[in-house]
């Protein structure tokens, strides 16, 4: 096949040789695809990518040594515009979520037709994401929302002020200190620490211990990242 500007330089990454050759055979007569290399595991995928710099990778997820997703995570830091279309046996939400989070451009399950595969390759090569007919933008947003974990700060409480002690105790709880440890650190009795904890819970309308812990860890983390006092 002669390479020209219209060709997509493709790399196929799949650990099962028979599936790999099947995929390659399938695309043999497609004139806009030019196969530049094959890889048989995640590590191989990284190595070959850096040598051949293909336009597009069609990759399996579950592979020995390094999964396709982990390989992409490593590659994407050096090659932020890398285009990977995953082809996987699994259709579980979490696999698709993980692929999206890793920076995949597309995701297909292995039971699709040749036409859909070619359509997806075309879309992704043009820089458009493709996650199959079931996953439009709205569904993907819902999926991300589901797994990203919900932040628990009630917007009505922004502006609620804490005392210095409250702030300190909340931060310690969020850093993983038990009441007895906090008491020691702050030269207070354990009872006083527990009392102040109770007051924080009331202030921020946190009704249960899990809600309080969630609030505290996020507070401490936010403080760490911003290096300034968060004004609730």
């Amino acid at each position: 096949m002669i390479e020209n500007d219209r060709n997509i330089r493709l790399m196929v990454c799949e650990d099962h040789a028979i599936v790999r050759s099947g995929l390659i055979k399938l695309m043999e007569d497609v004139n806009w695809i030019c196969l530049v290399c094959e890889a048989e595991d995640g590590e191989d995928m990284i190595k070959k990518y850096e040598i051949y710099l293909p336009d597009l990778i069609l990759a399996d997820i579950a592979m020995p040594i390094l999964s396709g997703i982990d390989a992409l995570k490593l590659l994407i830091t050096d090659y932020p515009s890398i285009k990977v279309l995953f082809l996987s046996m699994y259709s579980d939400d979490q696999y698709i979520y993980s692929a999206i989070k890793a920076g995949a451009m597309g995701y297909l399950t292995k039971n699709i037709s040749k036409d859909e595969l070619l359509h997806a390759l075309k879309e992704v090569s043009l820089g458009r994401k493709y996650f199959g007919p079931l996953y439009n933008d709205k569904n993907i947003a819902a999926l991300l929302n589901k797994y990203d974990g919900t932040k628990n700060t009630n917007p009505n409480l922004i502006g609620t002020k804490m005392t210095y002690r409250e702030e300190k105790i909340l931060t310690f709880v969020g850093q993983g200190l038990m009441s007895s440890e906090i008491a020691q650190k702050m030269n207070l009795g354990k009872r006083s620490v527990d009392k102040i904890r109770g007051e924080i819970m009331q202030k921020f309308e946190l009704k249960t211990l899990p809600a309080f812990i969630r609030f505290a860890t996020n507070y401490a983390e936010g403080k760490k990242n911003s290096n300034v006092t968060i004004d609730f």
Partner: protein
Amino acid sequence: MFLLKLEIEEAAKNCDNFKDRSTRLSDSLNSTIQELRNIMFDLKPKNLDDFGLDFAIKQLSEHISKSSKIDGSVEIIGKPKRFNNDSELYLFRIIQESLSNVIKHSKATEYNIQLLYSDENLQVFISDNGIGFDVDNSQNDKNYGLLNISERINALNGIMKIESSEEGTLLLFEIPI
């Protein structure tokens, strides 16, 4: 299992010494349960290898929420890191065991798991709004389970902290990265 079957069949034929037999049955069952537990501990959930701890825990929690009335949430904070295979499985089992304690003993209606990654360690916060228990009473059945968990944490060079009151229990692990 085969032995159990025979015992049960025998017991059914001969009701006179059922008490003796039922003790034997219950002993055999206990050791079978223990054996199964050990085997299951070594089995790896399919998603753990591919996606790591965070996902496996999220899925575990989803599964628990579906099969019980307890309302659970999982939150990942910081940049997730992968541990080696064995440690990941170990950690997964430790969290699973802790959760099963919450479900079995705490009477909680809500629990929360947080995995907090920093450069130095992974902190796992497991909190519930259950009835709590006396952490210092080592005769307690629940503490036996905790001892198990704490030994496993030690094996990972981590530490375990616990705090319990009538408002609930907080279990915290810190594992070096």
